[in-house]
């Protein structure tokens, strides 16, 4: 794959063959060397073939081999002439992260961390072979969940208005149509509200370990030494099935619309087509399910913190910093070729990172730029960064979403053989509670890039400003 260095942190795959635009990858020299023979670069080029794509097919520095799109991929298509690709959103529609702060000091909580870990582990269902946190929802109630998103949680006592104000899209993506979600998707999701799921999903209790920008940290409510809660989860089986349903529907329509793409997983339909509109309505429904899911889990976690540590709501001082989604397609206005255009931005393992002053940001955060939450691995740290104006010009207001894997799950399990990772992590000060050994092995710290390097590339490129670093001391996994 031909790569042209544009500067120290940006590389280009020139437009060639069926590519409609060039590809651009944010990475440093060391990262790009590791990527040279990686299928992820071919995937960047494949995405550049999507009809209606504008700007560049982009990849963030946490890029790695996905299916169809690379993980870390961003593609904006014209809202009128472009296509929507269910694979460009992924199976876990609105997989995302939320971060809450507390008034608790790490040194006061640390002696009780095993009790707290047990309480969180007991309170947050993994979602396999167990009832969800809210069992027995009728089909009509589930339809309200997918229509209302986090607003359903607010109506039912699992959220505050402030929580919704600090959630991307207010926790509800417009245009959801519950009748576009299949019966099978409802079946898969029916017991899964308030469940974590497995894979790379987690719930983490951390401490604010380092502040890089005091003003932004203060604005986000982050103070050194304070305890925070980070949740990474998505739309569970309802979203997975929705993607599968529409990959099939959209894939079958491609010949009719004369769309030819190099990877079947990229299947796409014109946004304005019946298939495209149906997918967007179902995707919004699944996205709303995910926001409700994360909101309910956060509520349960807040209860677990109060019970395990015997503190009042006032003493806990629990407050949501922000909730971001990193698998989504959204209609946004961006400047392309010197003019404002409505585009549909696919973010597949990439986070919205709007800069200061953007009108969609809540008033309390508008002057500071959007908080962007970048989880690392369970042994090291995660970062909070803020979107900058450059992101609006270069990446359709997008940034990285995590560390990015460097080791396959298969290899990680082999590396973990004969080791007790829980003991190793405990020695590092991280208490892990997990339902499966494989879940810990596959997610071992060595399996990931150092997220600090990923964040540094985004900062060097002017996409985000680093605000604070979080160090985990409790990790809950399925």
């Amino acid at each position, binding site marked *: 794959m031909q790569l042209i260095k544009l500067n120290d942190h940006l590389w280009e795959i020139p437009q060639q063959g069926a590519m409609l635009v060039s590809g651009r990858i944010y990475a440093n020299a060391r990262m790009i060397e590791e990527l040279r023979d990686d299928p992820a670069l071919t995937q960047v080029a494949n995405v550049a073939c999507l009809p209606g794509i504008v700007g560049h097919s982009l990849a963030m520095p946490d890029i790695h*081999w996905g299916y169809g799109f690379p993980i870390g991929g961003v593609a904006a298509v014209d809202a009128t002439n472009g296509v929507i690709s269910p694979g460009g959103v992924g199976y876990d529609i609105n997989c995302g992260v939320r971060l809450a702060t507390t008034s608790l000091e790490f040194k006061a909580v640390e002696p009780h961390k095993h009790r707290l870990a047990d309480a969180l582990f007991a309170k947050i269902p993994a*979602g*396999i*072979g*167990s009832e969800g946190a809210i069992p027995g929802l009728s089909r009509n109630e589930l339809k309200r969940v997918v229509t209302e998103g986090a607003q359903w949680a607010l109506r039912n006592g699992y959220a505050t208005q402030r929580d919704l104000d600090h959630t991307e899209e207010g926790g509800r993506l417009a245009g959801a149509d519950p009748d576009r979600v299949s019966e099978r998707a409802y*079946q898969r999701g029916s017991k899964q509200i308030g469940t974590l799921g497995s894979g790379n999903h987690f719930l983490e209790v951390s401490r604010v370990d380092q502040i890089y920008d005091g003003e932004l940290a203060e604005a986000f409510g982050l103070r050194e030494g304070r305890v925070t809660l980070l949740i990474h989860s998505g739309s569970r089986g309802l979203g997975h099935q929705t993607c*599968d349903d529409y990959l099939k529907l959209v894939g079958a329509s491609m010949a009719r619309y004369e769309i030819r793409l190099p990877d079947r997983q990229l299947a796409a339909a014109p946004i304005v087509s019946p298939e495209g509109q149906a997918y967007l309505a179902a995707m919004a429904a699944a996205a709303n399910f995910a926001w409700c899911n994360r909101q309910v889990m956060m509520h349960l976690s807040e209860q677990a913190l109060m019970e395990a540590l015997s503190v009042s709501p006032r003493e806990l001082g629990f407050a949501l910093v922000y909730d971001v989604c990193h698998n989504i397609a959204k209609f946004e206005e961006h400047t392309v070729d010197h003019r404002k255009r409505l585009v549909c931005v696919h973010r597949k393992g990439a986070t919205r990172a709007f800069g200061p002053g953007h009108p969609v940001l809540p008033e309390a955060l508008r002057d500071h730029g959007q908080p962007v939450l970048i989880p690392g691995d369970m042994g090291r740290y995660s970062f909070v960064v803020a979107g900058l104006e450059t992101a609006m010009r270069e990446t359709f207001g997008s940034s990285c979403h995590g560390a990015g894997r460097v080791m396959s799950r298969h290899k990680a399990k082999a590396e973990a053989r004969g080791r007790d990772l829980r003991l190793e992590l405990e020695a590092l000060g991280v208490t892990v509670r997990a339902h499966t050994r494989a*879940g810990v092995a596959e997610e071992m710290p060595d399996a990931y890039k150092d997220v600090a390097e990923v964040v540094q590339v985004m900062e060097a490129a002017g996409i985000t400003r680093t605000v604070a670093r979080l160090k985990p001391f409790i990790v809950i996994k399925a």
Partner: protein
Amino acid sequence: MAARSTSPDNSDTPFYREFEHTGDTGIELTAPSRGELFRRAAIAMGAMLVGRETVVANLERNVTVAAETDADLMHDLLAELLNLFVVDSFIWRDAMVEEWEGTLRVTLRGEPFDPTRHDFRGEIKAVTYHQLSVEQGADGWRARVIFDI
């Protein structure tokens, strides 16, 4: 067209090989016949979800799928099986396959999933179409499937 059935194999011979995929999990399967390939795929999926040695084969469930190509049959079969586990909480140890061109009928032998007794190995979100292939070669049949984990 006449159906052919494939008898179950109760050995613990590995039915599949995981190949390196950075983000998710990919498997390769080989088999002497088309029916045996689908049977091994069904058993492989069960084994990826739950440790096979902990599953007792005392109940049967049937799954029928139809599709135009063998690759679609593979996708649709594994997607149906995933649904059987996630929605119906059924886990299997063995499978038998009856095959026609464009249609498979798979009989699974297993039991209800019990998280307190079974060795659950982690969720599979979906069966992807990325690099999905089912091919007949000179030395038998071969398939490649990537799962979203």
